[in-house]
């Protein structure tokens, strides 16, 4: 194993653990009634965000979703500003004005989460359009769930992206559920075939396998930069929690056995950790150390955010219009 690969692998592992740690703490903040509002947990889907974002530069753009903490962390965000945003504090990425569903971190190329399902498909495609016009070689990745494939906007923007050869990758995080409904009950035909119908080269990939996701994304990003985009990825994955943190009793649409099976046999972090050990890239102790360090980092950030101050009420009508 080369050193470079080792560093990449450890960073991918670390970033996945950071997402899980962030979500575990966010969930606790909700359960202990310390967080205003609701939030949508990304846990279980970490290999998708990390595998993709590790193939991007900070200048490349992503658009995120209501289930977006994973994308935000994977694109390079800090825990402190993220927890501050979740708690509506002044030091949050959006000065507390966006919250969980609208975190944007433009410094790292995250154009923002979106609370309208599929609402960012135009934005991502537009970012790719401007990249092509400005000839800056940037790529845009549009994250969305399988539920969002029912939105008409996707078909409109795929048509234009394909017509104009835009450097955009449509990444469908197919966790099998559209909010509280199995997607197979509301989706006719094949989602992948829908993208192919526009002449968009499409790929199906195991969204629990961070290396598979990363290797595919690296190739597609490279090809996008050469003007060969757009592309579509259908990433099979699983969300461990309900639609949002308050969706606890969900037997009526999803069996506990199914959840247990994904968690025990297909967890992206556990499985990648085992692989790292089996390849002698890290030892068990080193993995424990990484996990411990991140647990501490997250707890410190939560404590910091809980103590941080709210924005002054005078900020309420600030930022309605740009100067």
């Amino acid at each position: 194993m080369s050193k470079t690969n080792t560093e990449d692998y450890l960073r991918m592992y670390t970033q996945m653990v950071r997402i899980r740690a962030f979500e575990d703490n966010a969930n606790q903040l909700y359960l202990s009634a310390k967080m205003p509002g609701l939030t949508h947990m990304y846990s279980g889907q970490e290999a998708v965000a990390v595998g993709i974002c590790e193939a991007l530069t900070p200048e490349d753009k992503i658009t995120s979703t209501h289930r977006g903490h994973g994308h935000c962390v994977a694109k390079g965000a800090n825990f402190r500003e993220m927890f501050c945003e979740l708690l509506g504090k002044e030091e949050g990425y959006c000065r507390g004005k966006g919250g969980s569903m609208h975190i944007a971190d433009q410094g790292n190329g995250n154009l923002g989460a979106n609370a309208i399902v599929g609402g960012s498909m135009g934005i991502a495609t537009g970012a790719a359009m401007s990249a092509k016009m400005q000839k800056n070689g940037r790529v845009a990745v549009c994250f969305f769930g399988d539920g969002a494939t029912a939105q008409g906007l996707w078909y409109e923007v795929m048509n234009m992206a394909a017509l104009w050869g835009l450097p955009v990758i449509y990444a469908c995080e197919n966790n099998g559920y559209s909010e509280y409904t199995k997607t197979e009950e509301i989706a006719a035909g094949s989602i992948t075939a829908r993208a192919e119908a526009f002449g968009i080269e499409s790929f199906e990939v195991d969204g629990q396998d961070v290396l598979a996701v990363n290797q595919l994304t690296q190739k597609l990003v490279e090809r996008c930069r050469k003007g060969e985009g757009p592309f579509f990825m259908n990433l099979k994955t699983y969300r461990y929690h309900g639609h949002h943190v308050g969706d606890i009793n969900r037997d009526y649409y999803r069996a506990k056995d199914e959840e247990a099976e994904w968690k025990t046999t297909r967890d992206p972090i556990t499985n990648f950790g085992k692989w790292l050990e089996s390849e002698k890239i890290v030892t068990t102790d080193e993995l424990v150390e990484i996990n411990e360090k991140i647990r501490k980092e997250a707890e410190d950030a939560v404590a910091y955010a809980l103590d941080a101050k709210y924005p002054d009420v005078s900020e309420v009508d600030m930022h309605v219009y740009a100067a």
Partner: protein
Amino acid sequence: MREITLSKAVNEAIAEEMRRDPTVFLLGEDVAEAGTPFKVLSGLVEEFGTERVIDTPISEPGFVGLAVGAAMTGTRPIVDLMFGDFIFLVMDQLCNQAAKTHYMSGGKLNVPMVLRTNMGATRRSAAQHSQSLHALVAHIPGLKVAMPSSAYEAKGLMKTAIRDNNPVVIFEDKLMYQDKAPVPEEEYLIPFGVANIKREGTDITLIATSSMVQVAEKAAEILEKEGISAEVIDPRTIVPLDEETLLKSVRKTSRAIVIDEGHQSYGITGEIASRLTEKAFYHLDAPVMRMGAMDVPVPFSPALEDVTVPTPEGVAANARKLCGGELIHAA
């Protein structure tokens, strides 16, 4: 001074800004070779090429969404929405995305885009190609809304809109595209939020937008013959609104009619009338009156369509009543 059509004024404004700033581009249905159904953009593709004058599929939410993303990442798109009625199709991209991005991101992301579209009935185009829907977008914080009333305003407001760092919606009256007005050869911009006093008067203030400015001016001419002196004011942008100029006029004249081609109910006539009443109550000698389009879908038949929008005679009749004190007793 030379006179040019409103259509030519818009075309010049866009061309000048595209020459000045390479990040400005146009997209929409039939904007390139066709130059739009109203031929407003004719000639631009020849100068700027298809990379900057982009024909899109008939996918309004899609191309408005693209403009939002392009605006967030270093360019200044001008979106052409062929008819104002199609604004209903793009509401999510315009009102949930473009309008809120700057605020939701705590001021980190900007959306410097222009959505130019049209308004105006009496073109015999029936209910889905005749609406004046500016009040819908004026209701949403984060959007600016401009309503040019002549070629002069159309050019100056468009240039300001393109340079603004916010999403701006411009409503051009499609019946005025061939109307000529004096427009200077040299460059000028019209700042947003500055109303224009078109005609000074002392007895009543007629506040009018877009093509209703002409209606108000004609009404003022009728009234003048009867010894009633009407002041006509064009707000030019309804967001931001130059409240001060309107208030100052009403404090002087003590009477006002607000005239606009949007439906009267829940429209901008009510909003402006309410502000005047709240802030100039003790200066008023009569209730502030609203004159919007009738609250009916725009009918096709000329016999029906023409009665749905305010006319000079109708405005003059109401002004007469207000100045004669009739409505005070009626109310």
